[in-house]
């Protein structure tokens, strides 16, 4: 109680508990979406050893597929289905056309080829849909706020996003640890020759894993696109955040991606709100806002650097 009192005295009115809880939920929501994005990325890297910069393009493809489907059918649910399947199909197509030629190449070739794919996807989308942002509207039923305990008001849609993300996490965990396919995926990580010799169709398995990753990226793009806007170039900032997430969590680890994503989501959201306020305690207002927000924008990268210095292989990465 004493701590809470001293806080209301020193921090002023800005940090009521409800506001704080709301920001934590926002952080969770963006973290969960980062996880959906990063899970595919880390799975593709873990199983195929491929660094895929074009993952952000698949996020964009999902968002555009959703916007187009929503405009056509008027159904948000169908839009999400379109995002998931559209991105998975595009991912499958790209894997068979380009990506599978890159598995045996070094990382530099992978970076450049997938960078080339970004250029093609971005400009291609601009060609078909134009440069103006599209809007994807959340259905009215779930757009409004809901009253949670202890006086928090929070949009239903964002809660649903958190729920969907948790379901994805659970589904991936079940897929990888409980199914036959999961066994093959884990075996593919360790020894690709051996499981090929055991009669598993490796190239179909790889296409499938890539398509799962692509579909998840597309789903994340549609879910986030409904809060923000759907436009060319929306994928790349998220892609880089997803990279930070999997570097923090340890490349190839789904559990690491989950924890890393929540960590990054919370740090980014809370830092952006509270760092300027914190600086105001011992600085002049305008300078504090400027410096605080500048530093807040760097916070997750600082977090990454710190984790890297302590554990170069990431929180849940395997050494070597």
């Amino acid at each position: 109680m004493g701590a809470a009192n001293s806080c209301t005295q020193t921090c002023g009115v800005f940090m009521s508990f409800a506001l704080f809880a709301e920001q934590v939920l926002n952080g969770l929501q963006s973290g969960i979406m980062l996880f959906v994005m990063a899970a595919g990325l880390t799975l593709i890297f873990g199983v195929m050893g491929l660094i895929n910069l074009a993952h952000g393009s698949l996020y964009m493809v999902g968002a555009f597929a959703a916007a187009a489907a929503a405009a056509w059918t008027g159904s948000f649910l169908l839009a999400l289905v379109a995002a998931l399947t559209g991105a998975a199909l595009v991912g499958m197509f790209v894997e068979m056309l380009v990506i599978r030629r890159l598995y045996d190449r070094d990382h530099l070739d992978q970076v450049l080829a997938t960078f080339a794919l970004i250029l093609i996807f971005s400009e291609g989308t601009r060609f078909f849909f134009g440069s103006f942002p599209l809007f994807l509207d959340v259905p009215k039923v779930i757009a409004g706020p809901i009253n949670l305990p202890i006086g928090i008001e929070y949009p239903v849609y964002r809660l649903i996003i958190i729920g969907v993300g948790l379901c994805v996490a659970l589904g991936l965990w079940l897929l990888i640890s409980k199914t036959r396919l999961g066994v093959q995926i884990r075996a593919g990580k360790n020894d690709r020759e051996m499981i090929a010799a055991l009669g598993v169709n490796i190239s179909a398995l790889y296409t499938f894993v890539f398509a799962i990753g692509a579909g998840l990226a597309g789903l994340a793009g549609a879910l986030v696109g409904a809060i923000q806007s759907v436009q060319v170039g929306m994928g790349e900032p998220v892609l880089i955040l997803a990279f930070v997430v999997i570097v923090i969590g340890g490349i190839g680890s789904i559990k690491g991606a989950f924890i890393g994503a929540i960590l990054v989501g919370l740090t980014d959201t809370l830092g952006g709100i509270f760092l300027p306020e914190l600086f105001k305690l011992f600085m002049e207002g305008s300078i504090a806002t400027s410096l605080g927000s500048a530093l807040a924008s760097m916070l997750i990268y600082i977090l990454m650097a710190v984790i890297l210095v302590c554990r170069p292989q990431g929180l849940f990465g395997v050494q070597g």
Partner: protein
Amino acid sequence: MILTRENILNFVITAGLILVPIYAVIVEEPFTITLATRAVIFSLAAVGLNIALGLGGMVSLGHAVFFGLGGYTMGILAFHAQSYIPLFEWPILIEGTKQMLVVWPLAMIISAIAAFVIGLLSLRTGGVYFIMITLAFGQMFFFFSISWSAYGGEDGLSIYVRNQFPLVNTLVPIQFYAICLAILMLALWINARLAKSSFGLALSAARQNTERVRNVGLDPTSIKLVAFVISGAITGLAGALFADLNRFVSPTMFSWQLSGEIMVFIIIGGIGRLYGPVLGAIIFVTLEHFLGGISEYWLVFLGLLLLLIVLFSRGGLVGLLVGRERVHE
């Protein structure tokens, strides 16, 4: 110098870089000189990256950090010079400047310091981690430059008059071009000397087999770190020149797309080849100008070209024109 096909190609490119702008002066097409200057400055940035990437095997996807730092060093100094507000008043008075000979070393030192810190942290890891971490550091600087409003934030900084160089009128396009070309040639000479020096050989060895380098008693990480610092300083100098060319700096100089493009120059030209970055940058600027004039979606064609080069021709254009690199004798 031995008359290999690669040396002949290098000679032809150098001659082109000298003759085309002179021709442009004669037929009075100043825009061609601006394009050539752009190509030369991009070449310089890519020559810098090629030391890390081609010689040292460090796939840095964050070299725009150094390009941007060089640009902002120039921009901030010019901002203080043109507004007559000193940069620091304490502990000693430091004012802005418009002298290239002051701006360049500062741009290089600041980029080198950043390269040292980023390299020190990033080289703790390798492979795909290194790529992602350098990319993340690039984003860190990008977002910082956007939210740091003192120097224009998202809008960037305009510089009214180009910086000065003794005895040269830098406002005349061809004279500014000559300065840039001279620096590029110097950087290429340094690059060639570096590759042949014992340090360069150790660096190549560190790229090819870390364990063996360690076993002969050298420290591969510190060799790579030194190369990364040199690489960053050269790219930083290119950034300062680029800011001078456009008389404008903005956060896009830090953008990760720019990091990607600098790498693309090297790959189009030919990785590890002395003139690879130069040829790549010339081709990029030419395509940007001509394809960009035909279609605003020209990056699709660049993407396709890049994809084809990566998938089917691994030595870039230099490799295509002169064949595989000669093995060290």
